[in-house]
């Protein structure tokens, strides 16, 4: 996977465990929540990699571990050739200017006591991107215009805006430091249906205007299909399949991807009548004590004995970049 041209971010064997401790004064380490358990993938410059999976599968943790908001337990996060896990302090702070994040909840991710101008202006100030107050204000107003808001909103407070407008402010804040790579963590899940399309279109326009690279995390497969060039599917801390968008949606290999796709309702009753659904039984197992072998075998409709014993390798099944981890394909 390594060494390919145009790769901006490469993740190697990324692991993020959260310790579970017992006791109040002397805390004993009793187990780990294996939120992310060995991921390998890369993102090319200018592309959008979609990351889908159900809640608790570790997709948001992956995004945060890449930005070093959590320090990964093991593995490498190579951004433009530099391993972010190895650097810290001032060097990490300066590198972070190039990686930004858009959060899921536009109600919780903006400080209610700061004006919009201060929210967007703060990263500009921290990274010393404006020489004077006036320049900073001009920059903030320009950013507001870029995300489709009135530039004179800069002295208003977040509560004066609707959900969709707040998400635009979140986007403006991420853009403030002229990043190259943005992790979009479910940026539209908290928004109303009619507003979602506005934000998706905005993200796409910004990508082509500024040459941004996105890691787009979402649970909605229709949206991910719309925005992504390639898609990775996660299940219980592992990536089970990665392929280009069309291959993943038209020719999925992994049984989990197939079930996930068949579960998405389609807004057309004639199509729905004819559809065959693969209904998975049961729930996602706990990441504290994941099943032995393939993590999916407890719900897999085609599991055989080997699936319960051995962890399937994540390999390129077709030889042209369609990776999957399954014994049966």
């Amino acid at each position: 996977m390594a060494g390919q041209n145009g790769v901006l971010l490469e993740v190697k064997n990324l692991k993020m465990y959260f310790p579970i401790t017992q006791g109040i004064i002397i805390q004993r380490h009793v187990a780990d929540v294996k939120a992310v358990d060995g991921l390998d993938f890369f993102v090319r410059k200018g592309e959008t990699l979609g990351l889908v999976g159900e809640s608790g599968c570790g997709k948001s943790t992956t995004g945060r571990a890449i930005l070093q908001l959590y320090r990964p337990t093991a593995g490498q996060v190579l951004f433009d050739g530099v391993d972010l896990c190895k650097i810290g302090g001032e060097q990490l702070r300066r590198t972070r200017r190039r990686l930004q994040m858009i959060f899921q909840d536009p109600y919780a991710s903006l400080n209610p006591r700061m004006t919009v101008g201060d929210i967007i202006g703060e990263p500009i100030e921290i990274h010393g991107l404006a020489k004077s107050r006036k320049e900073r204000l001009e920059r903030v107003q320009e950013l507001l215009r870029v995300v489709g808001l009135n530039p004179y909103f800069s002295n208003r407070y977040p509560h004066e805006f609707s959900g969709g407008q707040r998400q635009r402010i979140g986007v403006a804040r991420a853009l403030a430091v002229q990043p190259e790579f943005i992790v979009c963590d479910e940026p539209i899940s908290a928004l109303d249906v009619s507003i979602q399309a506005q934000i998706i279109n905005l993200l796409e326009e910004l990508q082509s205007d500024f040459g941004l690279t996105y890691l787009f995390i979402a649970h909605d497969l229709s949206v991910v299909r719309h925005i992504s060039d390639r898609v990775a599917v996660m299940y219980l801390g592992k990536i089970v399949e990665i392929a280009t968008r069309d291959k993943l949606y038209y020719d999925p290999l992994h049984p989990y991807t197939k079930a996930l796709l068949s579960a998405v309702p389609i807004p057309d009753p004639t199509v729905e009548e004819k559809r065959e659904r693969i209904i998975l039984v049961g729930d996602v197992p706990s990441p504290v004590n994941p099943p032995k072998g393939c993590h999916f075998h407890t719900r897999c409709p085609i599991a055989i004995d080997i699936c319960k014993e051995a962890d399937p390798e994540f390999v390129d099944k077709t030889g042209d970049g369609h990776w999957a981890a399954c014994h049966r394909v």
Partner: protein
Amino acid sequence: MAALLQVKNLKTQFFTQDGVVKAVDGVSFDLGEGDTLGIVGESGCGKSVTVLSVMRLIPQPPGKIVDGEVLFDGEDLLKVSDEQIRRVRGNKIAMVFQDPMTSLNPVLTINQQISEALELHLGMNKEAARKRTIELLETVGIPEAAKRVDDYPHQFSGGMRQRAMIAMALSCNPQLLIADEPTTALDVTIQAQIIELVKRLQKELGMAVIWITHDLGVVAGLCQRVIVMYAGHIIEQAKIKELYGHPSHPYTLGLLGSIPRLDAARKSKLTPIEGLPPDLIDAPPGCPFVPRCAYTQDICVQERPELRTVAPEHQIACWVDVKGGKG
């Protein structure tokens, strides 16, 4: 087809410090026995307030049902005494709420919560109620129901909690099940399980279902008829195939155009509905969709359109004839 539920000109308002919020403003619809009705709309459009008004669960004050009739089995639920409505709730009409994490009592076991309704409405004793609870949990597909019945809600996963909620709703064999966004908080694979479950139960038990959602996809596979709501009004209603085949209100068209579809060819760009849903305080006299509508004419600003029939069993509240079709 006898109408099980008839809602006539329902108006529910909230009296707040900022003014009167007309959350539901003249909603009428019928529901036959064994029917499935979908109510679709965005947050704040009044879909939840409509069904909460039917159950008389609107917090009062600030809310108040100011006008209308809710005829259930011929009886106006808005006029009966508190005692009588309590006998209807959970017994003849049952409800499943959006968030299974907050709508179960965390300090009572699943058995205590489901048995309560059985003891109250059907007069069962503790043992009989417990037996019936276990049966119900088996019906909704909880594994090892006899063992799990004494668990507390936190020991259940999200999908299992929603199943327990459904079991509770089914406990008294209701004639009508109201499901208020029951799968919104769940993952797609679990959502598929719950939808299959409700479809199966409906077939077996013959109850009517009102399914409230913002997801046009869920409704397509489940319901026979759909109501689309916007700003407290019904703006379109039709049989399911008619609505998706010939959507006619600009808002419905906009909604269908703004969501990417899993099975359709990928569009280069989505067509969002511009602007924001309106403020329900001091709504202007015209059609509430005017500020976001691409087909606005003079009359739309002056007068609010009433529902009119555009095809058999297909009504819209719009002055304009928009040629709707697929794609």
